[in-house]
């Protein structure tokens, strides 16, 4: 699913590399807990995996695609087609309603749209129902939803059109302990339906036991001190 080999990345004006990963392999359907305190280079890694930043040295292969060989536009398209993202908080565009926010996941990808069995709107609605956002909540404005509910809407946006990889960047850090596990449970249920890979990035060790595998960025990143 994901293969990283000899990846070295340094930001402009920083002489020392931020990231230096000799090997990381993640297989299809795996649920990975990527532990990374701040400064460990996790934002950089996410940027490279999602194709925001260009690879300088080494390579990343996702779904048999060499990211290095893709142009910036192709990487954007690749991200639109194959990767769903959930951020820490305020994932949603405040001027769109929850359903529109979910539909946004397919906005830039024909491939994901084509995987839908129903209309885009209907898919968004049923996905929201699956993730526990019922009819009344769907009609509300995004700002009226609780953070937990917002994160569920964000998860629905990440899952719509069944992208192979879900990157979740500390999605639970704004939630209380009870809702954290429930949220992760929901993610897993959804991912299981079509064997999606989940890359869950967090600095909260207590969640690690829920995952198939734990990867510590500090350990694999040769550049981190």
């Amino acid at each position, binding site marked *: 699913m994901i293969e990283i080999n000899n990846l070295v990345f340094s930001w402009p004006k920083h002489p020392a590399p931020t990231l230096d990963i000799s090997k990381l392999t993640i297989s299809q359907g795996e649920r990975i807990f990527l532990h990374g305190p701040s400064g460990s280079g996790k934002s950089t890694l996410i*940027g490279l995996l999602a194709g925001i930043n260009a690879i300088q040295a080494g390579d990343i292969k996702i779904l048999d695609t060499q990211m290095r060989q893709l142009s910036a536009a192709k990487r*954007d398209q690749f991200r639109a087609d194959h990767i769903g*993202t959930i*951020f820490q908080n305020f994932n949603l565009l405040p*001027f769109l309603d929850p359903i529109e926010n979910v539909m946004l996941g397919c*906005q*830039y990808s024909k491939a994901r749209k084509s995987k839908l069995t129903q209309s885009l709107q209907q898919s968004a609605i049923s996905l929201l129902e699956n993730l526990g956002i019922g009819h009344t909540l769907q009609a509300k404005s995004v700002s009226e939803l609780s953070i937990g509910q917002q994160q569920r809407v964000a998860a629905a946006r990440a899952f719509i059109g069944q992208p192979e990889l879900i990157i979740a960047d500390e999605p639970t850090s704004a939630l209380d302990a009870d809702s954290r596990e429930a949220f992760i449970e929901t993610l897993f249920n959804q991912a299981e339906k079509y064997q999606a890979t989940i890359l869950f990035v967090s600095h909260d060790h207590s969640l690690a036991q829920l995952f198939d595998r734990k990867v510590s960025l500090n350990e694999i990143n040769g550049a981190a001190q």
Partner: protein
Amino acid sequence: MNLASLAFKSSWNRKSSVFLTLFTIAISVMLLLSIERVRQEAKSSFANTISGTDLIVGARTGDIQLLLSSVFRIGHANNAVQWQSYEYIKQQRGVAWSIPISLGDSHKGHAVLGTDSSYFTHFRYGKKQMLAFAHGRAFVNGGEVVLGSDVAKKLNYHLGEQIVISHGMGNTSFHHHDDNPMTIVGILKPTGTPIDRTVHVPLIAIDEMHGSGHNKSPRIVDNPLNKPSNEAAYSHDHHSQSEHEHSEHEHSEHQHNEHGHGEHEHSKHGHGEHQHKNHQPVESKPGDLIGEPKQITAFLMGFDSPLYTLQVRRNINQYQGEPLLAIMPSVTLRELWSMLDIVEKILLLFSIVVVLISLLGMLTTLLATLNQRRRELAILRSVGARPWHIFSLLTGEAVIITLFGCLLGTALFFMAILLAQPVLQAQFGISLSLSMLSSYEVKLLGAIMLAGTVMGIFPALRAYYYSLSDGMSIKV
């Protein structure tokens, strides 16, 4: 959901600042369109006032002054043309027609123009249009009067009514010639020129009313037509400009009662009657229209060939009998434009600057809110939006704001025209048409749209670089 609706919804989310910006643009657009419309209409209004006249001849003065006083009733002629000179010049070879005009009197603030029947057969305005009668006919004897359409409308005059013409330009003239009531025999169709606000009388009437009045009047000395004395000039400047415009209504009431004295009953009766059976032609016998005038203000001439125009013009300018000036209206009009050109350009420049300021206001607002929107941009990037999507989104927003600003501005512009129309018509004789946007105005709007789009490029570029550097990491 496409980019446009995304831009629209995002703008709507920040509606208070967006609406303020939009409103600023709308007002500036309204200003620009109004100024340009008034400028153009004023120009065409002026250009349409006289047509087909080859020469205007008056006492020696400035070219533009003669044009303004004889055709536009702006200012006044300081001197007059001797009737003998007119009689002599109109005999010249090649003269197709000539119209004597005598100005300087007024009726309730409306200019009185003394002329003869050639006025109604030869005068042209607009695109060589003849004067046409809405009701009635031209005058055929000395006791008849033809009104411009505005005069009739404003003073509510009808055919057959009798009115009294006063001497001097002011509404407040002391002596009304009660003994010379004149009958309205014709009302002209609207022309959109000063003719609409003119009372036309035969030359003999002007002669007569001054002749009979000159004993009582301190202002008329020996020559009844020599009214543009300094005094008259003074009274013109003061009364005709402001005073009687304001007090027109009171005055007209007042005067009516006053000068009605002798025929009070009659005139009232007449009024009532004509309200009902309005447009009945007035029967009368043809009589002398000219009388024995000593002087006129100016005269208009048409020639058989342009060759004669130049020749006669030269002769007139060198005329030995008295100092005269002959101008070609089209040439002088062009001179007038070139004089006003700089003023026009400054006006245009100012309104363009106002539009630019409003667009810069939009730029400021967009740039100021951009930082708060970096999250929005990051989210869009995370779902696969490319940097150029972000760029188009921001540009699209500027386009939307400018577009709606232009639309609202155009609506406001039409409202402004609607409101200003009667005032401009009454005060300056500029008839504004409530017509659709001209191609020039559409081009102006196009230029504003273009400028708005260019403005949008700045925040869009910045957003573009934000989206490249921030990527998906949310930095707010």
